[in-house]
């Protein structure tokens, strides 16, 4: 379209072309309906205007046939955009398994991005062409909304809970990122760029940023905070094991079951007594206000990295361990030193690919 008067935004993701097709269908069908109605209004206005020979109207009470027709036909036609729109929406809500997982923290008025290997960026996100990218997003203050017009992707970013979005870029270039939910004074300046690169360029870019992976940062924090004093595999454990937990169903004390996803893990750190795992005592202290969202997401990333291998069958709800006497692990005791930490807690440093659950097949 013209640079002077653009009519459509650039299209740079698989989702964009698919959405434009639906949008143009809606434009065309709406234009047709509008034209028909306007034509009727104009023709009737001219033909039935008051003039000699037409001083009195012909009174018509109504017609069941017509009413039924113009109720049922629009109802039927409207199901086309309903199903079409719903199908695309479900696609937008289901990121592929091999997606690159990027963590997003929004705050007034900036975007922070964390790549799985620990590279972090502010107000700019580099992604490769052709690779699905999954965004796991959280806000540190008020509601924001991640919006990239060129991808036709938008998702609100909430405080206190993770939301996700995904896209697969198709064309290298720089595309606008905008905050779409009003978030205060500089809402309109909470913008940035998505930089889409050819895969080789992206790999080079990642290499120049070199840093520690999110999962290993999380592991270090896990040990610094002494989490491994209780969350351990041996008989001294006073809290549930976390290896293999991610993505499983957990049975709680009140008999209900929850999925151990990002939000569950984050909530369990912030508010441990809210969802107590069946068979364990609610002895864990809260970490509310002590950890930044960035730190929390490294912990979540770590627990995700020690989760079951991708594609492993989901087992039954994890059996409850035998009940244990309540012990206060924080009563002056020091965390168990890391040599005693059971092996499953360490794969991040041992593996050349630090977050196997995220990057998926290494052949890409």
């Amino acid at each position, binding site marked *: 379209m013209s640079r002077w008067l653009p009519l459509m935004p650039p299209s740079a993701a698989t989702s964009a072309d698919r959405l434009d097709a639906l949008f143009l269908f809606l434009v065309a069908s709406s234009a047709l309906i509008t034209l028909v109605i306007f034509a009727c209004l104009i023709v009737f206005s001219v033909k039935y205007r008051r003039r000699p020979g037409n001083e009195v109207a012909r009174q018509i009470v109504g017609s069941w046939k017509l009413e039924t027709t113009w*109720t049922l036909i629009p109802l039927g036609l409207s199901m086309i955009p309903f199903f079409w729109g719903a199908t695309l*929406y479900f696609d937008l809500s289901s990121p592929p398994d091999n997606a690159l997982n990027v963590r997003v923290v929004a705050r007034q008025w900036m975007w922070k991005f964390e790549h799985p290997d620990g590279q972090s960026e502010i107000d700019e996100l580099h992604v490769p062409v052709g690779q699905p990218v999954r965004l796991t997003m959280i806000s540190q203050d008020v509601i924001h909304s991640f919006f990239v017009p060129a991808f036709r992707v938008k998702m609100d970013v909430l405080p206190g809970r993770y939301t996700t979005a995904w896209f697969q870029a198709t064309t290298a270039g720089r595309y606008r990122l905008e905050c779409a939910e009003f978030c*205060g004074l500089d809402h309109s300046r909470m913008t940035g760029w998505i930089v889409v690169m050819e895969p080789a360029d992206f790999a080079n870019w990642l290499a120049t940023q070199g840093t520690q992976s999110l999962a290993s940062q999380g592991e270090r924090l896990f040990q610094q905070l002494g989490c491994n004093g209780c969350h351990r595999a041996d008989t001294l454990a006073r809290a549930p094991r976390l290896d293999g937990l991610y993505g499983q169903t957990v049975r709680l004390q009140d008999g209900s079951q929850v999925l151990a996803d990002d939000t569950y893990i984050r909530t369990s750190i912030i508010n441990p007594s809210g969802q107590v795992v069946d068979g364990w005592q609610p002895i864990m202290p809260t970490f509310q206000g002590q950890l930044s969202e960035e730190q929390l997401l490294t912990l979540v990333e770590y627990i995700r990295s020690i989760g079951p291998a991708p594609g492993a069958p989901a087992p039954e709800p994890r059996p409850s361990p035998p009940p244990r006497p309540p012990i206060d692990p924080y009563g002056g005791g020091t965390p168990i030193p890391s040599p005693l930490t059971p092996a499953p807690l360490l794969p991040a440093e041992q593996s050349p690919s630090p977050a196997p659950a995220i990057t998926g097949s290494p052949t890409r």
Partner: protein
Amino acid sequence: MSAVAIAPPPRTYVANGASIWSWLLTEDHKRIAILYVITITLMFFIGGIAATVMRVELLTPEGDLVSSSAYNKLFTVHGVIMVWFFLIPSIPNTLGNFLIPIMIGARDLAFPKLNLASWYIYLFGAAFTLWAVLNGGVDTGWTFYTPYSTQSSTTHVVSTTLGIFILGFSSILTGLNFIVTIHTMRAPGMTWGRLPLFVWSHYATSIILVLATPVLAITLLLVAIERVLRVGIFDPELGGDPLLYQHMFWFYSHPAVYIMILPGMGVVSELIAAFAHKRVFGYSFVAASSIAIAVLGFLVWGHHMFTAGMSVHAALIFSLLSYLVAIPSAIKVFNWTATLYGASITFDTPLLYALGFIGLFVIGGLTGLFLAALAVDVHVQDTYFVVAHFHYIMVGGMVTAYMGGLHYWWPKMTGRMYPELWGKLAALTIFLGFNLTFFPQYIVGYLGMPRRYHVYPPEYQVLNVLSTAGASILAVGYLLPLIYLLWSLRWGKEAGPNPWGAPGLEWQTSSPPPPHNFETTPIVREPPYMYPDRRVVGDPSAHRPQMRDGSHGG
């Protein structure tokens, strides 16, 4: 001798007392309607000034006229004033207040004192909100989304929301008054099947006013409680849930959209019948569709939250229901269009507004179907596409209908005709200015310009310049009627009781009507809109519409 002592009763409600107190303490629904006309007109221009400053600011991509803080307050003031202090009371409290008792052949509303109380409550609420605006303003947007409104904003959130909380009681009392009046005060023979469609649409509106407004009151009270007492309701830091706020807010605010459009639809039904000189095609379908909209309108609030982190399955249901709620609106448009078939149309100003309403409402309604398609909403939610869509409904629809209704019933309310040529000129100016203002916003929204942006990327500028140009035409269009309608109060032609030759009860009494509307209680013997029929009478001038009786076939 004694006959000399008895003063004759005042001939019109206007002549029934000239002191300021005879207006401020009146219990006459017609006088209260005039009080509302004056107050909401004032509010419309306050909200309009805020919009004008915003449009001038948006001429350039940089923020060079006002600061970001001022801009955020401007769009909040614009939204709050226009939604709650203009649109919601606009037609119901002015035309509805004036006409519903007359249209059903009653002396007044069921609770005249409550009606006056509604106006004072409205003023009291407006005082709170205007105080907040004048003392630094509020910057949350009219939606007051949490946790921004409860935790982050440093502006006058509490006094603004309290103003709206108070105003809500005015809405509830008006709705209650209308429902009771329509149920109990219809003249002999005024069956439900003979109610004018204007009354039907106000009945539907009143149901929403009574059922939805309390939820708004609760929600805004919870915002104030969280903000002042730090009780965790919506703020996750305090253990609350921000999506809960959005569910509660839209549970009111989506039905409120129908509070804002249903009365306009009622006006348009009257205007089309009056200037087609014809019965409304499919009366019972038009009436029933108002009730269907009121009921279905309560079930679609989730479509404001498709990108808010709601479950995909809930989104699916809300999308489906949003398509369903469009059907009754479509039925109305088709019936209005069909009413013109075989008519004998005169093109006076009110009809121009009615035709403009249909055109703009069709565009606004169809783009609503874009928003109901889930994946499209993901892209255009919170952009100017949404702004354009709801302005086509609220301004292109409701304000156009209000202007049409005001012109149509102006001779009844004041006894004077407005100047026809100026009326047509203003209607045309408004139509052109409106489209130039808001059509470019659909495009800039699809391009990706988010709403509530003080500064914006330069590629959106051309469309914003077009929009601002349109807004200046629109402003002229709205100022014209203000001038010539006031002019007509003194210099307008005497209207007489029935300048349009319409059969409705409001035209069977004098203009302006006497204090108790009718000299004697009318008896209704026929369905509404009984215009002469070409097939019944060879000579139209000999025809008396009242002669025909018969139930409505529909």
